[in-house]
C-alpha cells in the first residue's frame, strides 16, 4: 500500500453467492480489482459466460457495468435468459459520501469520490461515476441511468437510460428514456419530451444512447 487509504465497496442486495462480473469493460475491471479483495468473484467476457455450465450460472450472483448502455443491456439480458432468477448485486464505494436516506436498486454502482447529498432514489443498474454529485436535495434516477465523471445533478428526474456526459450541470431537469447529453452540457429547469442526443437543451442528433454511443 502506498498510503493509508484503501478502496472497498459496501454491497447491497447481496445473497452471499460468489459474484460473476460479466463483460470485459473498463468499469468491470476496476470493480474486480477492488472486489476480489473482499469477496469470491470472477471477471469474464460475455462469450466466456455463454460457455459456462447451468450449474455455474445458477450458483452465482451477477454484476456488470459499462458506459455503453446498449452493451450493458445486452449483457443483462443474456444473464437473465440463462437464469431468470439471477440476482444482481449493487456496489457503493466506501470512498463515496452518500446520504443516509439515499436508496439503491439492484446492479447499481456508486464509484469512489461520488457524492450524494440528499435522500435520492437510485433504481436498478444505475452508474454514478467518480467526482460526480447528486446534490442538495432529492433526485430520482431511474433504471440504467449513467452519470459520467465530474457531473452535477440537482433535483432532477432522470428517465430510464438517461446518459449524462462529463462535466454536465443539471438542475431541475426531467429527461425522457435513453436521452443522452454530450460533455459540458448545462441544462436548467427543462422538461424534455423527445429522446436523442443533446448539447445543452438542443437536439443535435435523433439517435439516443442505445443507437449511438458518444463516450
Amino acid at each position, binding site marked *: 500500500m502506498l498510503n493509508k487509504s484503501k478502496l472497498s465497496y459496501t454491497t447491497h442486495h447481496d445473497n452471499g453467492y460468489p459474484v460473476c462480473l460479466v463483460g470485459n469493460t473498463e468499469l468491470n475491471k476496476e470493480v474486480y480489482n477492488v472486489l476480489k479483495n473482499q469477496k469470491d468473484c470472477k471477471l469474464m467476457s460475455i462469450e466466456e459466460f455463454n460457455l459456462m455450465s447451468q450449474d455455474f450460472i445458477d450458483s452465482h450472483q451477477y454484476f456488470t457495468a459499462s458506459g455503453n448502455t446498449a452493451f450493458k443491456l445486452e449483457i443483462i439480458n443474456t444473464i437473465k435468459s440463462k437464469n431468470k432468477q439471477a440476482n444482481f448485486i449493487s456496489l457503493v464505494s466506501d470512498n463515496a*459520501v452518500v*446520504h*443516509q*436516506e439515499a436508496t439503491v436498486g439492484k446492479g447499481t454502482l456508486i464509484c469512489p*469520490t461520488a*457524492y450524494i*447529498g*440528499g*435522500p435520492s432514489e437510485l433504481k436498478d443498474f444505475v452508474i454514478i461515476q467518480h*467526482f460526480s*454529485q447528486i*446534490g*442538495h*436535495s432529492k433526485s430520482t434516477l431511474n433504471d440504467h441511468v449513467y452519470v459520467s465523471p*465530474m457531473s*452535477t445533478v*440537482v*433535483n432532477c428526474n432522470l428517465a430510464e437510460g438517461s446518459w449524462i456526459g462529463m*462535466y454536465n*450541470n443539471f438542475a431541475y431537469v426531467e429527461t425522457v428514456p435513453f436521452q443522452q447529453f454530450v460533455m*459540458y452540457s*448545462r441544462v*436548467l*429547469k427543462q422538461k424534455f419530451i423527445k429522446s436523442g442526443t443533446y448539447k445543452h437543451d438542443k437536439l443535435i442528433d435523433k439517435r439516443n444512447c442505445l443507437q449511438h454511443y458518444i463516450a
Partner: protein
Amino acid sequence: MFNIHNDNLKPILLVGKTAWNMEVYNGINHLRDVRVISVEEFVQLEDKKNYQYFTGGTDTSFRKMVVEKIEELVENANFVSFVSASAQLHPEFKIGKNSLVCSFVASAGPTIIGDHCIISHFCHFGHVKSILGDYCFIGPYTSIVDCNLAKGTWCGHNCRFLRANTKEWSQYYMNSKTLNKTFEVSGTYKNNKLLDPGTCLTHSLKD
C-alpha cells in the same frame, strides 16, 4: 456529515428555503436540533434569541439580505459554519462564520475563508495560501491557487483561477480560466473578458 464550527450548542435555524439549506439540513438533522424556515417565518418568530443561525444559497444578493435581516432582528446573533467531514484541509485552513465547506473540498495550503462563504463540492485550493473575503461563492470543481478573491466574488462551475485578484462582487461564468490577473473593474466575466457591468448583487448567474 458536517463538523460544526462557532457552535454555541443552541438549536440551529437554517433561514431561507434554498437548495443549499436543504442539503445542510439533510446532513445534520440526525445529529442536531435543526429546522429550515423561510425568511418570512423567521421574521414572525418570537423567540429568535433562542437559536443560532446559518443561511446558504447560490444567489449572493439573497444570502446577503438574509444575513442582514438576521443581524437586524437578533442582537449579537451567532452564526455557525459547516465543514464536511470528507473535506481534506490544511491544518492552518481558517473559516469565518456562516460559511460552508462541502464534501471532497481539498486545500493543500493555509487558505483563509471569510464570513458567509460557500465552497462547493470538489473545489481545490492548491499549493499555497489563498484569501477569500466575505460572501464569496465558489462553484463545484473550481481550482484556486495563490489568489486574493475580494468580498462577494462569485465563481461558477469548473473555473480555474491562478494568481488572480478580483474586485468586490465580481462574478465569473462557468469554465472561466484566469491566470496572473488583477481585475480593476467589477462585473460579469467570462475568463478575463468583461461581458456585463452587472455584478452578482444585480445579475445572478445561478439561473
